[in-house]
């Protein structure tokens, strides 16, 4: 029979390890591992990086462009030579025409670049204004004010607004207040005109849709009217887009419509019902007219939001509802687009 045995499981060396007594050190001797308790937010996680073209794509575009330009110059060169070969005076006429053409194209490109720059300036201005509002930064707000002044300096209709903004700006200390002041002073007359333009466009679209014999006609008219409206609004806020600038503007407006489409739908659900329900009950064409008019209104609102150099802060931004009386009003003389 075995005897019961008990043995200690821990060996002696765990006991012999010294216990660490509490001690204090000067902070200078310590290497700090955690500098602050709130790690700064990782920008990469919140803002997606803009994907630039890879080097292959860039190479393809560059070489392609070089080839095309070479081909064009060769063609022009041969044309001029051929003209000289036929008659000398014809050759000279060709040279003069070419020189004029090149000059004209040069100035056109210059104008496009300037127009694109203006759009970018408005974009940048809005970004600065948003920052100045959020940070209540007086310096940035003054920058925005002086740049606005530059953009609208030649506008006679804003002279009085400029003066009152200048008068008040001297007495304000807060960046957000300065931006609000500029918005109230300078944007109010522009907003009013933009609204009037949008309303007038929408009314024309509604009218043409209601009387047009074919669907194709009113689709074409909606597109034509939208393009005209976007251009007019951009010019109103000081952007004056050229051809390429206009493409950029159209892209921005479409992107804006796509993003806010859902929001606009909830905002205008009643209006939708009015368009497709009530008005359609009276006449199918009339209902379509209202719907097309609302579409134009949306384009107008998107254009305002894209080109307006200040964000909507002190003033309320236009919504589809504001324009509904405009569209359903059968007597346009009494309509007041200024709202």
């Amino acid at each position: 029979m075995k005897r019961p045995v008990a043995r200690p499981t821990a060996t002696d060396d765990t006991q012999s390890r010294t216990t660490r007594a509490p001690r204090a050190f000067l902070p200078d001797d310590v290497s700090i591992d955690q500098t602050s308790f709130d790690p700064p937010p990782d920008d990469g996680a919140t803002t997606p990086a803009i994907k630039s073209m890879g080097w292959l794509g860039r190479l393809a575009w560059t070489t392609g462009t070089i080839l095309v330009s070479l081909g064009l110059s060769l063609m022009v060169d041969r044309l001029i030579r051929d003209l000289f070969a036929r008659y000398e005076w014809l050759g000279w006429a060709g040279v003069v025409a070419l020189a004029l053409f090149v000059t004209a194209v040069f100035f056109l490109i210059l104008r496009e670049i300037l127009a694109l720059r203006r759009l970018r300036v408005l974009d940048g201005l809005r970004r600065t204004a948003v920052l100045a509002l959020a940070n209540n930064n007086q310096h940035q707000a003054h920058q925005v004010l002086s740049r606005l002044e530059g953009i609208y300096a030649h506008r006679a209709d804003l002279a009085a607004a400029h003066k009152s903004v200048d008068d008040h700006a001297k007495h304000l200390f807060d960046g957000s207040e300065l931006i609000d002041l500029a918005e109230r002073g300078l944007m109010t007359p522009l907003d009013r005109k933009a609204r009037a333009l949008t309303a007038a466009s929408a009314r024309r679209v509604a009218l043409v849709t209601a009387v047009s014999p074919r669907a194709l006609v009113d689709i074409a008219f909606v597109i034509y009217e939208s393009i005209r409206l976007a251009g007019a609004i951009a010019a109103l806020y000081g952007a004056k887009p050229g051809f390429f600038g206009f493409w950029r503007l159209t892209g921005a407006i479409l992107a804006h419509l796509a993003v806010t489409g859902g929001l606009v739908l909830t905002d205008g659900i009643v209006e939708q019902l009015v368009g497709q329900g009530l008005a359609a009950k009276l006449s199918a064409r009339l209902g379509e007219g209202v719907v097309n008019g609302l579409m134009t209104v949306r384009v107008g609102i998107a254009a305002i939001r894209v080109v307006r150099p200040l964000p909507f802060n002190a003033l309320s931004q236009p919504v589809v509802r504001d324009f509904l009386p405009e569209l359903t009003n059968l007597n346009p003389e009494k309509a007041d687009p200024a709202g």
Partner: protein
Amino acid sequence: MAQAPTTIVDELGIALANLADAATGTFTPTLRLGVTGLSRAGKTIFITALIHNLLTGGRLPGFSPMADGRFIGAQLAEYPDATIPRFAYEQHLAALTGQTPTWPESTRRISQLRLVLKYQSANWLAGWRGPATLNLDIVDYPGEWLLDLPLLSLSFAEWSREALERANRTASSREATPFLEILASIDPQKPGTDTDAEKLAASFTRYLRQSREDNAMSTLPPGRFLLPGDLEGSPALTFAPLPPATQPVRSTSLYAMLEGRYEAYKAQVVRPFFKDHFARLDRQVVLVDTLRALNSGPAAVADLETALTAVLSCFRQGDSNSLTRLVSRRIDRILFAATKADHVHHTSHDRLEAILNRLVANASRRARFAGAETRSLALAGIRATREGSLLEAGEVLPTIVGTPMPGEVLDGTSYDGNTEIALFPGDLPEHPDSLFEDSTPVSLNFLRFVPPQKLDRNAGGDMVLPHIRFDRALDFLIGDKLA
């Protein structure tokens, strides 16, 4: 146990008055604006600037009804309560805009004013009825009296304990010693006589007035001792704190006599003042003169915080809807304002606001919990200085330019009230909490300045009072009611 500041009868009276207001206010609603602030916080200036700016359509770009062009005008009107003096707006304005501008004298009595505002509503339903009107009722009163409101929930024994505790603090030993000596020489249990009571009250009053002058202390109730008005010498104002009774109090003793007078003071002086002017407010602006307390040091700052918290806990704050408003009015918006913001450079305004936020943190938390909306601003109802910058020892100092009041002293120089100077008053601390600590001395010196000398005139020929953020204050306080 803390007592409720009002009795049931008071509550009934308040509810009935609210109901009457609601009935008469169906067509012309009335907004009661409570301008609260301890003495010298700038209540009179605030009210004068408010009336003048609204009457003359002053320079208020941040006041949305005016900026949108919906504000039609304002007019002074008869106040419904015929027994209370009218706010002397014309005199105050004359003092401010006279040949040699002076600040109005400190308020010594209560006064009221009603302003009728006419505006076009932006709301299409209300706008359809044409221009709307709103009555704005404002009350001005000595700020000292505000200190009485916390007394409503204190018994004589509780108040005595607090008052004697304050008197025994080392900071106020110099002022309090004479009073404490007299107190020690009198036995509260002996039969009460008017002579003893008067002796005690007189020395207590002297102590209170001196500590306010010398130490810029704020928590010094009862307020009528500092500024008695027409109650000077009446029995209700002839009492003083006594040490707690160790044995049963006889009804003829001095203790019983003073306790009776304290209760009478509460019932007949403080409670009507509260009931008539503070129990039925819609909006409140709390003006705080932080700079004066900062000048005097940590004790004064801590004391200011205590006073503000105690006073503000008496107000009825909270969310109200149109149905409950019929019988119970609540303050649904409170603006905390650090006044005299023109005494510091605008780059320091955010620090001034931070200090203000720290001072009213308790009060503001309580108000927000009750459902009221709060905001804090550094403002100046009337701006007395301009701004400049100065290069000294390679450092750019933001300075303010103005004429110091006669008798103001800085670095041993006493000013005569005619010389304009550029002043760098010192940097406000980055962390407001350091103001409460004795260990880190803050070197600050704010001088008082005379009112602006040359005022612009607007197109209508009226004086334009320069201000700092006054329009935003106004927009927060009444802008939404004119929407």
